[in-house]
């Protein structure tokens, strides 16, 4: 990802040009219309972090401003005409692609919006005829929230909702809880789609955390912000999907390529180019700096051009980034100098931007923006008893100047949109269910050795292990362990075929991640993100992290994995029943530390006197935790017993785990550092090194080195070891199943809590 710091000469030459169907080509008529549609919400200082969606204050309206000037006439178009909206708040709206104003002032087209009718209600979706003003509610579950609706091609809308996708077991729907993020406790929102008339609602496959702010792209796909919360990661990244929830793809901000914590309220400028608000996750009233993100190689059109794969004709001078889209080729430009990218208070006259809408696709586009002056930071505003005062402005992104259009003191004026027709995106046909998926999600790859991220020696992989993720919605209120990973349950292992292919049918709509394992059951490569597939979807990739710009040609029957049939991975087993039957190679699903792993230690006498018994005996490291401020200290010595750990040092308390768990998974080191607690080896101690760290890499752990894992696949064989040499007598007695459980515990996130024991903690 590159930061663009200067405009390019060619674009300056065409600075007065713009895109067809994107208006703004006339300096005297930057909007391409005489009317703006604007959302007016009562001012507030409580929006929650950028993923929250339930903020409510009665009294919102949607108005038209005509002409779009500071002295234009404001007319309420929604929703005084319907008494049901007397106490409504409106979250967001969108205009249909044919929305327009005729010469006689009549509006045509439709408007979709999300509204909450009363404080005790939830947000629902509504469709309004712009010509008649008639409002009809779209069919939604009244106890769930449906927000951020946006029009798509083909008479459809996208939205997000905290409604859960029903699990279908044996053909029967089975209501399941929506994921509940263990960090911010919210019921997570996921993508949904339906026809404009409310029929055929489809809820997309789920992520463990929120998905918000869907927006259409000219190529027919839907861009949105996904909260990635895996381990210590906690950020909002841009992703795309097809308009039926299938074919999820990363777009911007992942894997260390971004510039700030979160990207939100994205909207397309031109093919391969989007505007987004860049901000901290919280305390910024869901506002921040405006970013111009280019997803591929940047070029300036030298003539009007229809771009293959994208709807519309794009005007000469438009800057596009449609070619070779990848993280490597992505770049960005900050269009609002000095606006903080973090959560610190902004400065006077700098403020923050709530959203932005492009009026053209120049290198420095003209924008309709929503801006508030001052700190626009929750704490500062709260202390002063004030709210951010968002109003609508015309923004010259090259000169970075704002021209006021509308700003009242009692309301926010946000999300301004020109009332003019737009080119609809290309339609994308709904994915047909893949027969091989059998109602679950078919996943696999044509050649797992094909990876852009790492070299995988040919023949080194036995198969692909697939995990299901879950969070606190299933009952565990505390962390799953000290490694801050989500809950894991092993769905199954798909052996790699001689051609490198593998295939599996997993439960639909559940977050999954995969890792490649060798014949010793040891993870060699772990995919660092969660993904998911909808029912009947085929998520077949070329390889594991194959080039994103390459094409994957899927020809069922060609790969050996498909020819021989995908591995069944409990897609017809109810979610709560996906638990271990026994803690063996073939029976383990979750790995509850206090029973499965502790069982290995107990059966093998690992904590017997003279062994890993919590004494400093040469086989056990010991550390002293010292509170720097007071000098108080406490010792902890490697101990594989199942006794509860109970460390108290000043206000530091480490409880809820067993001594064996802390010995193997370690402390939360960042927390100790943050608390001013230093950790030093006890005199005579071997070096401090938790026994199974790092997670997902059991093969590199001290424990694996000691016990030397045995062959697990295709058959268990304790005479075949992963590493040269035999373990010493003290560590050589583990059964093949014992080895397997230790390896699975380490490679499944090194958690203490699994589905099997979460009710106990």
């Amino acid at each position, binding site marked *: 990802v590159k930061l663009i710091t200067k405009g390019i000469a060619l674009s300056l030459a065409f600075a007065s040009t713009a895109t067809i169907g994107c208006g703004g080509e006339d300096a005297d008529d930057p909007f391409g219309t005489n009317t703006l549609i604007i959302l007016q919400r009562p001012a507030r200082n409580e929006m929650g972090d950028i993923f929250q969606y339930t903020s409510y204050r009665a009294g919102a309206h949607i108005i038209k401003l005509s002409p779009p000037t500071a002295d234009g006439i404001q007319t309420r178009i929604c929703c005084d005409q319907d008494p049901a909206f007397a106490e409504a708040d409106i979250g967001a709206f969108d205009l249909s692609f044919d929305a327009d104003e005729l010469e006689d002032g009549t509006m045509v087209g439709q408007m979709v919006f999300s509204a909450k009718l009363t404080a005790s209600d939830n947000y629902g979706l509504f469709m309004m005829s712009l010509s008649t003003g008639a409002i009809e509610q779209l069919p939604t579950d009244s106890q769930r929230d449906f927000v951020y609706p946006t029009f798509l091609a083909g008479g459809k809308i996208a939205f997000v909702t905290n409604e859960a996708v029903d699990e279908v077991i044996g053909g029967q729907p089975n209501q399941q809880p929506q994921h509940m993020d263990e960090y911010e406790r919210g019921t997570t929102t996921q993508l949904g789609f339906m026809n404009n*008339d409310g029929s*055929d609602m489809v809820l997309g496959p789920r992520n463990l955390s929120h998905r918000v702010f869907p927006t259409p792209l000219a190529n027919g796909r839907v861009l949105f912000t996904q909260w990635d919360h895996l381990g*210590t990661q*906690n950020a909002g990244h841009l992703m795309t999907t097809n308009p039926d929830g299938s074919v999820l793809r990363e777009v911007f901000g992942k894997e260390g390529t971004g510039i700030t914590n979160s990207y939100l309220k994205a909207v397309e400028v031109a093919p391969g180019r989007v505007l987004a608000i860049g901000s*901290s996750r919280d305390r910024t009233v869901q506002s921040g700096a405006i970013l111009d993100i280019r997803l591929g190689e940047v070029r300036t059109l030298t003539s009007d051009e229809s771009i293959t794969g994208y709807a519309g004709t794009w005007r000469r001078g438009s800057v596009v980034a449609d070619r070779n889209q990848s993280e490597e080729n992505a770049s960005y430009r900050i269009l609002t100098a000095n606006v903080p990218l973090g959560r610190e208070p902004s400065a006077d006259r700098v403020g923050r931007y709530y959203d932005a809408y492009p009026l053209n696709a120049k290198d420095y586009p003209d924008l309709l923006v929503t801006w508030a002056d001052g700190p626009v930071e929750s704490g*500062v505003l709260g202390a002063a008893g004030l709210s951010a005062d968002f109003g609508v402005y015309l923004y010259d992104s090259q000169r970075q100047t704002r021209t006021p259009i509308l700003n009242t003191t009692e309301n926010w004026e946000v999300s301004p949109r020109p009332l003019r027709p737009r080119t609809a995106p290309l339609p994308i046909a709904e994915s047909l269910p893949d027969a091989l998926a059998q109602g679950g999600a078919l996943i696999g790859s044509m050649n797992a050795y094909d990876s852009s991220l790492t070299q995988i020696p040919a023949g080194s992989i036995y198969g692909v292990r697939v995990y299901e993720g879950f969070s606190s*919605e299933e009952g565990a209120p*505390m962390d799953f362990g000290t490694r801050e990973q989500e809950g894991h349950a092993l769905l199954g292992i798909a052996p790699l075929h001689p051609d490198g292919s593998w295939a599996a049918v997993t439960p639909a709509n559940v977050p999954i991640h995969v890792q490649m394992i060798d014949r010793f059951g040891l993870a060699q490569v772990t995919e660092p993100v969660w993904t998911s597939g909808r029912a009947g979807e085929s998520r077949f990739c070329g390889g594991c992290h194959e080039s994103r710009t390459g094409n994957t040609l899927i020809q069922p029957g060609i790969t050996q994995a498909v020819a021989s049939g995908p591995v069944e991975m409990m897609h017809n087993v109810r979610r709560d029943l996906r638990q271990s039957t026994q803690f063996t190679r073939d029976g383990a699903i979750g790995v509850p530390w206090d029973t499965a792993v502790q069982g290995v230690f107990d059966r093998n006498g690992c904590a017997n006197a003279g062994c890993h018994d919590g004494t400093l005996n040469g086989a056990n490291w010991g550390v002293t935790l010292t509170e720097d401020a007071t000098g108080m200290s406490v010792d902890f010595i490697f101990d594989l017993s199942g006794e509860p750990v109970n460390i108290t040092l000043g206000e530091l*308390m480490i409880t809820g785990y067993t001594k064996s768990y802390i010995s193997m998974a370690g402390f939360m080191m960042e927390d100790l550092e*943050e608390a001013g607690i230093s950790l030093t080896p006890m005199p005579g101690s071997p070096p401090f090194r938790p026994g199974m760290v790092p997670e997902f890499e059991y093969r590199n752990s001290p424990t694996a080195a000691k016990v030397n894992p045995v062959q697990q696949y295709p058959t268990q064989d304790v005479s075949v070891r992963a590493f040269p040499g035999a373990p010493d007598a003290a560590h050589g007695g583990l059964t093949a199943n014992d080895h397997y459980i230790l390896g699975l515990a380490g490679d499944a996130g090194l958690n203490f809590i699994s589905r099997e024991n979460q009710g106990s903690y």
Partner: protein
Amino acid sequence: MLKSKMQLAAVAFAILASASVASAGRGGSANKIRNAVATGSVDAIIAEIERAEHLVCQDCGDIMTNLLDHDRYEVRQAAAWWFAKRPSVKTVYITQMTDDLASGTPRVVRNAADFLGTVKALGSIPALTTAYRGMGDVEARRHIIRGVGRMANQAGNALLVEGMADADATVRTEAVRWYRDILRQTDATPMFGLLADADETVRANAATSIGGLRGAGARAQLEDLVVNDPSAVVRRNAAWALGRIGDAASRDALTQARNDASGLVRRTAAAALGQLR
């Protein structure tokens, strides 16, 4: 206006010194939480509680304990979450809060129920039940029901059903909403009676909850509501529920509802017609 500007400048200066980029459960401090509490901003307080997810500090326990008595439910819930991450302290507080149920004022009982629900203290359900039965204060009763509902465990079913018969409609509404979301809940029967409740919010939520569980036994009642209930919200929710149940016998009622006078109802009824088997 000038006063506002001065206020902003002063507070901004104090907070600028501690600004940092958000990360999961990191970057918090007791002072940051105190400052956030002082601002009165619920967003700021919750953000700093979250940032203190794993924070070890001398004063945090006292600060968080005070926040368990905050006026806003969202803040109390966030503070309880903070304790849920500290199992031994959580255990102590579960005991304390359970005791509070028996002896506390309505506000104390409300706070205790919020805490116990957030940390999913299943063992406290009998005490919550006793407290509910002896509690005259409506808000406290409502929060007891919410606390049990948040546990999402079938061990709380009996109290939720009891709550559905509460004298206060807001408590009945709370009970019928949470009942649906109990893990592995399948039996919608206890909610059927609420379709005839005098309060329209209760009826509306009963219809949705029954639909959520596909309570086919209430089909006839729902068909009556979708046509005859005076509340458009109730008619809408009944239509949605009939779609979920999906019985072709509902076709006539839904066809009638498709032409309902209210725009809240028509498309829901039309979509429900499309779901009939």
